[in-house]
């Protein structure tokens, strides 16, 4: 029995401890906002926060998060200033296309801006390069991250 927390709620998992965290979230907890894209930490669609860090849930065994708190896209606090700024910028810049990768993109952007409110272009690329988007929303993602940073008072 593996015990951990998802979005602050205690959860237990009694099946195969090798099950990737992604599939526990999706199949067992019904949290389908975290997406399956590649299964080997290449695309970032499955990005969640573990101890504030953006992590790829498809490549983390559920046993590895025992005792930890996992935050998913569903668990982002709407009133949190960084979350609010990122989501508002995403809508303002009309970023999404198909939208499938966007929960992962947003999780990576939130993790970046929570730590660095004035990222350089290189730092934005560095934080976001693990998140693929086949629709090619990258130009608007860049703009949106900068817009969110500006609204958080980040200056550079």
């Amino acid at each position: 029995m593996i015990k951990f927390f998802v979005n602050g709620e205690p959860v237990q998992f009694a099946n195969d401890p090798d099950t990737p965290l992604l599939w526990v979230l999706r199949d067992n907890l019904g949290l389908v906002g975290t997406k399956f894209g590649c299964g080997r930490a290449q695309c970032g669609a499955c990005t969640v926060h573990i101890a504030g860090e953006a992590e790829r849930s498809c490549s983390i065994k559920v046993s590895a998060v025992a005792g930890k708190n996992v935050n998913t896209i569903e668990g982002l606090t709407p009133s949190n200033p960084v979350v609010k700024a990122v989501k508002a910028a995403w809508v303002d810049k009309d970023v999404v296309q198909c939208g499938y990768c966007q929960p992962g993109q947003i999780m990576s952007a939130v993790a970046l801006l929570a730590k660095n409110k004035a990222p350089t272009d290189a730092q934005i690329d560095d934080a976001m390069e693990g998140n693929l988007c086949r629709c090619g929303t990258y130009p608007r993602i860049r703009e949106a991250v900068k817009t969110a940073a500006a609204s958080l008072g980040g200056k550079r």
Partner: protein
Amino acid sequence: MIKSPKPVTTRRAFLKSAAAVSGALVIGFWLPEKGGRAWAQGTPKPVHPNAFLRIGKDGTVTVIVKHLEFGQGVTTSLPMLIAEELECDWTKVKAELAPAGPEFANLAFGMQGTGGSSSVSNSWEQFRTVGAQARTMLVSAAAAQWKVKPEACKADKGFVTGPGGKKASYGQLAEAAAKMPVPEKVALKAPKDWKLIGKATKRIDSQEKVDAKTVFGMDVKRPNLHVALVLHPPVFGARVAGINAEKVKGVAGVTHVVEISGGVAVVGKSFWAAKKGRDALEVQWDTPEALKVSSDKLTAQYKELAKQPGPSAKKAADPNAIKTAAKTVSAEYEFPFLAHAPMEPLNCTVEFRGAEAEIWAGSQFQMMDQGAAAKVFGLAPEKVKLHTMAAGGGFGRRANPVSDYIVEACEIAKEIKVPVKLIWTREDDIKGGFYRPAYVHRVEAGIDAKGKVVGWNHAIVGQSIIAGTPFEGFLVKNGIDDTSVEGVADSPYDLANLDVTLHTTKSAIPSLWWRSVGHTHTAFVMETMVDELAAAAGQDPVAFRKVLLAKHPRHVATLELAAAKAGWGKPLPKGRARGIAVHESFGSVCAQVAEISIEGGAVKVHRVVAALDCGVVVNPLTVEAQVQSAIVYGLSAVLQSEITLKDGQVQQSNFHNYGVLRINETPKIEVHLVASTLDKPTGVGEPGTPPVGPAVANAVAALTGKRPRVLPLGKTKWA
């Protein structure tokens, strides 16, 4: 329960190739008359507005979008067309994806389908007409209630107003309006009166996508839903020779192992159970030597074929004219197979209930998929309900005439009789075929002393995308698949004595259209060869093109806009160079200027400036987004992506070895729209893809003096 199938000696018809399977399909849909080109067809017919529109008592306007939303923004642009004429409150507009149904046909195809960059253009008259019809009915309902003439009433922002200060909301009028006759003829607004069309309008699906509330096919939840994974043959066309499911029995959560036409399915109570089960499954495959194709041998064969005479797609008036040329340029080009690799891996959820079935899928071809499913179940198509789910990209992969993964899911559901979601892993996707076929082009072109093209001999070798599909009748003529030669045989350039031959090859590797179809390779060849001829003539590439395009003002205007915005001809820092390309596809013309450098032997693209003439612009925001998208998608293929085979096995498996563009590799992209002379919209989703490759290649040539002719460019070390 685990079914352990006995080794079987005789097999059902197997998915050897697109051709083998699709030829046997009987699908209940109507195709345009023979001889017509798919997207050139289509005359809007009056439709009952109820199919496309619902107005709630609260005034909410729900537009039923007949096309799949897979990023292109159609759930915003099609409602804009209705809202423009309906005169409703835009903030109360919602979009819903249409299920499979004949009333939702793409008027350019004559069947339901999303592709060919036709969603807005084919809906242009139809959806505005629906909006105008509904508005007329709302006004008629109000006039009848108030006992006044409809002419005395006015519709605006979701209300009808009448004499004496009378006012009623669309919500209040909806029920009565629905009983009004549908007007046959309605006048559409003049462009000067448009309030929404042409205005930058934000997507209406942004918030739900940002909040991760959009339900993709992958996210469908049903009671007792099982998950299926399929073990596909390691070589296209190989057949199951024996199945050993002994080790699968030990995997907790696995419920079924079933052989289907496309391989062997392992079903479990969760993805992970099915995945572990599939990993434990042992299958022996019967793989004839002939199927063990290797890319390098294939390319060598194609190169040989390109030198041979072949079926003609276009005959030169004087095939010997090239011998009079002052200068000739010859070149051979190689294009690899390409996977679509949409972010949402392929999936399909099915509930088979004996006398009827229900399907959830992000389908570009709803009715074909519905028909294919019905055939598997032995049911009439109307007994199969297909829900169109939001799709995480598609780029052509979800528009498969043979409905491959839909059929797989249905075969599994029919056998196991429990609700099931088939999921393809990324490895299944990359290795799974239905690729943009590999091609070889061979070109010899000659110019006279003034730079006029006097002869152009062009040979193309590759698989047909269309042969064997239900589209063959009207897209393949005299053995020439139009999609193999589009962009060459119909080139707008003034090329005296253009001669085009096509060698259509066959293989077991399934092929499919990939964003911009034939233009993915033809634009590259045409635009790099024209560039090479400009250099041979000692002329500027823009000036040279303008002379050859003198009879095509849209091309010239687009070329000029891109060049001007990119600062064509202005000096660049050392180590940088520009290249230009212009290409027409899907009724639109797109020109691009790429600015590049070489870093560590690799091509780095810094900036792409695009100009597009797409006719009437419905939503400038989504048009800009689609051009950015098309460029990023095209750049992935130009720089990184390739599928190769060795002894029949695909060598790539996931994004670590099937490279696609990442944010740090993405250039600055600028999109400029040409003030078009057309009075209707043309294609948007695809026309941005073809020019980016040749623009980059021409920049590489300008910088290095070497002409890129083998794709992707990442295969070559540049200096």
